[in-house]
């Protein structure tokens, strides 16, 4: 095989990209490794929002809610002495999904701009609670001093180098899971609802149930990113629920293209 043929092959650039990501921590300083970790976590967050915005056509303005719920859960669990990562991530995803299940009941009754207004208000409610309920959440000071979790596999996550590979692995798993989910009949149904809700209804699809399920899935995957960000940064405060985070995620989707 000639060099030119290899360059033209479909797997060359993905392969090069994968090699670059694996070698990245050895090529750049610690600062850039930290930045790359943030990119992976935010990618998970933006992908989870894309289930709603891109695939179902629901412009959620309050996606930080589920991220923040999982983040606070992680903080409380760590400070209570729970350091097992697998337990925390399952709880974080569960709580993210649970809060989405509750908010979805309220928000999915409205559509268009009303939907945006309600999701924005609901996420701000959580921000308000985190900000005001000082005896539990310490208010604006947040919960500092959260360390890295234990994996139970003999890998120490404390150095950023290992945490980098760990978040990258979780990013790939999330990517694969979302790919399977959104290319399943369920994913096609969501895109059908995005294109024409009335037609999907006429074809006999349970439109509300599918939207609701999409809403919950988005909450579950947002939970993963919330847990990871707390372990990366080491603290939680009400800004995890902030409007700016929800809006930034929307900007990420607009920049990268959504619904693909």
């Amino acid at each position, binding site marked *: 095989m000639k060099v030119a043929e290899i360059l033209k092959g479909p797997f060359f650039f993905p392969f090069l990209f994968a090699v670059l990501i694996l070698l990245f921590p050895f090529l750049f300083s610690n600062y850039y490794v930290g930045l790359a970790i943030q990119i992976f976590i935010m990618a998970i967050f933006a992908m989870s929002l894309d289930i709603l915005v891109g695939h179902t056509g629901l412009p959620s303005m309050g996606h930080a809610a589920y991220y923040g719920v999982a983040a606070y859960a992680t903080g409380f669990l760590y400070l209570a002495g729970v350091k097992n990562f697998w337990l925390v991530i399952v709880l974080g995803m569960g709580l993210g999904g649970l809060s989405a299940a509750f908010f979805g009941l309220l928000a999915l009754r409205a559509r268009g701009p009303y939907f945006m*207004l309600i999701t924005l208000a609901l996420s701000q409610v959580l921000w308000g609670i985190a900000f005001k*309920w000082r005896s539990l959440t310490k208010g604006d000071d947040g919960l500092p001093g959260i360390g890295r979790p234990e994996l139970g596999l003999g890998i120490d996550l404390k150095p950023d180098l290992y945490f980098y590979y760990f978040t990258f692995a979780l990013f790939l798993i999330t990517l694969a899971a979302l790919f399977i989910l959104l290319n399943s009949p369920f994913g096609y149904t969501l895109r059908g609802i995005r294109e024409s809700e009335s037609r999907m209804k006429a074809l006999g699809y349970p439109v509300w149930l599918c939207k609701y399920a999409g809403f919950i899935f988005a909450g579950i995957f947002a939970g993963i990113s919330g847990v990871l960000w707390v372990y990366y940064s080491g603290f939680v405060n009400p800004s995890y629920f902030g409007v700016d985070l929800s809006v930034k995620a929307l900007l990420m989707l607009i920049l990268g293209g959504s619904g693909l």
Partner: protein
Amino acid sequence: MAFWIIQTLNGLSFSMMLFLVAAGFTLIFGLMKIINIAHGSFYLLSAYIGLTVLRATENFLLATIASSIAVVLVGIAMQSLFLRRFYMKELQQVLLTFGFVLIIADLCLWIWGGNPMALPKPSLFRGSIWIGNVVFPSYRLFVILVGVIIAVGLWIFQEKTKFGAIVRAGVDDEEMLRGSGINIQMVFVGVFGLGALLAGIGGMIGGPFVGVFPGVDMSMLLLALVVVIIGGVGSLKGAFLGSLFVGLTDNFGKALFPELSLFTLFAPMAIVLAIRPTGIFGKIEE
């Protein structure tokens, strides 16, 4: 008894300030379907500009006029230069207004710094008044009076004037309004300016007792959101009753259970959302 009277009056004055902010938000949303996240920024900007003018001239009325003109100009510029290019694209409009939130907040932080400040009260209302055997600051009563006057003025404007009729028609069916030969862009700019003006006056009269500090823009937006969701988006009557409800609950919540004061505010909102997603006085979709 004195506790209840004072807290009720405190709640009422907070409600009236809230009504000014929420009324502008609801007018803009009702007509243009823009979720103006930058609405609290009008409050912030107006209070800061008012503070500067007050320090220079010591005249509250002059400061109110100067800050009102400034926020109306900012509001008109936002609508006519930026938002009209994204007409009926709700998501883009929201992101754009969020950009304004960041710009205005950072500019204010740059110019006025990050320390919380309170506007001095107008000299006429620095004292307090005896109501029966309760002492109450007269400025709070002045705020209630201003709120009621503006509410009545808005009601007359909406129900009795031609421009008010055009706005009401636009809320109901904006396409028909355009079809009948009304220059809708001028109406949009006018309503956006009016919304900014109301939030700006809210900032001026709220400045002496709520204060002005970085972050007050978002907390005002949050309260305005709760008000319009409870009252119904696009309805001034809903905004008025919603403000009364939110202002009083917020005040009694803070006085009685300080830690859980936001629950007393948000639980009713969730209940209203569950029963009527468009609010008590909002119009039902489809």
